[in-house]
């Protein structure tokens, strides 16, 4: 880890809803250019962890750091002031300590997809990507209105929805791409294509990717490192080989050989 620059870092993040602890003391790190997978049985808290990272929820405790600076204020040592480095510092220099909302984190360079595909359904394929670029706009409200950039309708196919979500996320020019079960509902061949596609995103854009996935072929094939959580707790972490042979992971999630 030390040789890579840290893109995302979670320190003892806990997400509690009433009495339910969905994410329990989760610590993890994603280095630049890495593909890291977050796996675990259903209800283990993977998507909740995603939501806590992207600002949809505010962690009950712990700290999320992005590009070497903390973004989420709750910390065991008390309320933190946000500190940003480099060009991002100017963006939030005068901001009071507020909960970082998803849009602000996207502006910092975090982009994600959703497990239950959340495309804008009345919009065309092209518009879906175009709207994601709205954030990068340079024109003001009035000039944008007067120089309307109209687009024609594009073909739309349901089977490309997952890919479209990835394209939409990429349109925000992120530094970290977070994919929440991109292969959900795909057959083995489509999954293989998606695996190649994610690999291309990494090599062509030098993208850092954090991935939640249940298709073990995809995860084992592409990930540099894997974190496994169960009941919100981190139970194992390491390279795919280490994870595949970890008795706790096999017990909690992978199961015995024949139905893996």
């Amino acid at each position, binding site marked *: 880890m030390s040789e890579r620059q840290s893109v995302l870092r979670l320190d003892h993040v806990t997400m509690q809803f009433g009495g339910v602890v969905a994410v329990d003391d989760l610590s993890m790190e994603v280095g630049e250019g890495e593909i890291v997978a977050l796996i675990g049985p259903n209800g283990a808290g993977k998507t909740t962890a995603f939501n806590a990272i992207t600002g949809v929820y505010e962690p009950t405790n712990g700290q999320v750091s992005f590009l070497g600076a903390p973004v989420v204020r709750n910390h065991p040592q008390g309320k933190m002031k946000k500190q940003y480095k480099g060009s991002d510092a100017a963006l939030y220099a005068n901001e009071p300590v507020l909960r970082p909302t998803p849009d602000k984190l*996207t502006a910092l360079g975090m982009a994600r997809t959703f497990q239950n595909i959340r495309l804008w359904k009345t919009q065309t394929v092209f518009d879906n990507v175009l709207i994601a670029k709205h954030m990068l706009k340079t024109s003001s409200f009035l000039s944008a209105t007067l120089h309307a950039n109209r687009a024609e309708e594009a073909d739309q196919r*349901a089977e490309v929805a997952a890919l479209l979500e990835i394209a939409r996320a990429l349109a925000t020019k992120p530094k970290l791409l977070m994919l929440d079960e991109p292969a959900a509902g795909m057959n083995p061949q489509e999954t293989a294509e998606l695996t190649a596609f994610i690999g291309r995103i990494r090599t062509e854009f030098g993208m850092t990717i954090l991935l939640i996935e249940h298709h073990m072929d995809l995860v084992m094939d592409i990930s540099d490192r894997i974190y496994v959580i169960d009941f919100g707790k981190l139970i194992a972490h390491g390279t795919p080989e280490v994870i595949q042979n970890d008795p706790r992971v096999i017990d909690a999630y992978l199961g015995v050989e024949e139905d893996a």
Partner: protein
Amino acid sequence: MIDRKAQTRKNLISLAAVLVFLALVLVLDQTIKPTSKAYMLLTVLQKGSVYALAAVSMNLLNGFTGLFSLGHAGFMLIGAYTYAIFTIPSDARDTVYQYFDAAVRVSFPETLGGALGGFGTALGVLLAVLLAGAVAALFAYLIGLPVLRLKSDYLAIATLGFAEIIRAIFQWKKLGPITNGSNLLKNFARCSTFKLKLGETTVSLSTFVPVLIATLCIALIVLLVNSTYGRAFQAIRDDEVAAEAMGINLARHKMLSFCTSCFFAGVSGATMAMVLSIAQANNFKSAMTYEILLMVVLGGIGSISGSVIGALLFISASEWWLRGLDSGTFLGITAPTVFRNGFRLVVFSVIIMVVVLFFRKGIMGDRELPEALRKKTKRGEVSGNE
């Protein structure tokens, strides 16, 4: 992906259609005399353009941004009063404010007209209309700060309440020097006095001006809806969580949409004062908001041309086509005396129910006019496993 030539051609055709329509209105304005039976057409055009603008501005909020707001009558009231107050000429001021000492002692058309002549008068009217929109937008901003945190029904109730409060405040006696209390404002610059003198001939602009204002404003809203901001609004409507995750600042964009919508509601209120020649707070009841909402729903939520068609049909039906039912004759048929006075509203309600039953998504759905006129290709939609 974008065929620019075809797009430009389509835009030119739309522009030409609008210009032809405006020219036609100008011609009708000259040819139809107030005594003629067809004068009703001009009344419908005047009132129709006011309501069309109001409906389109409401559609921007309810249909395109997904913010269900019912405060439109309140913002139109603000617009109407602002316009009226700033265009009352100085010699009429004492007659209008007969129980109060008028606080606002400036009239834009008069001041500018004195300095620049006829052009100045027109500029003054325009300035008052813009101010009407701006004041409505300012109120919208202040109301929006707390209210836009609410969602769906709660937002509707909060804005509805606001509109009622505004109506009460404008009738408050203590504000008499500005709003004339519960008395009406009159004698300000109104449509029936708008004329253009070209040498010997006088061109009447009484219908042309409100139609022109509405057309320009609706054109602006069309441009807005198609701009990157308009698309961001629609993204918020379709999926707020995804919109926020893609970097769209929800609070800012909702506020932007709310203020813009209320700006145009204010302009529409000003135009209404212009058309009716009076401004009275009592006219801007919540029933007016419901009428506008009805036009939006009839035309199709999420369709601008639908709102315009809805408004024109609604006004034509209530002011013109069904009016005969109240006076006893309808299309040459003499209605039984039992049905007189109020029967129009009964028939009207039945028609609305039939329309809503058979056009579930309104007349236009979420399509626009040029699209609907082309061959009916089924639009595929992005689907996911929601």
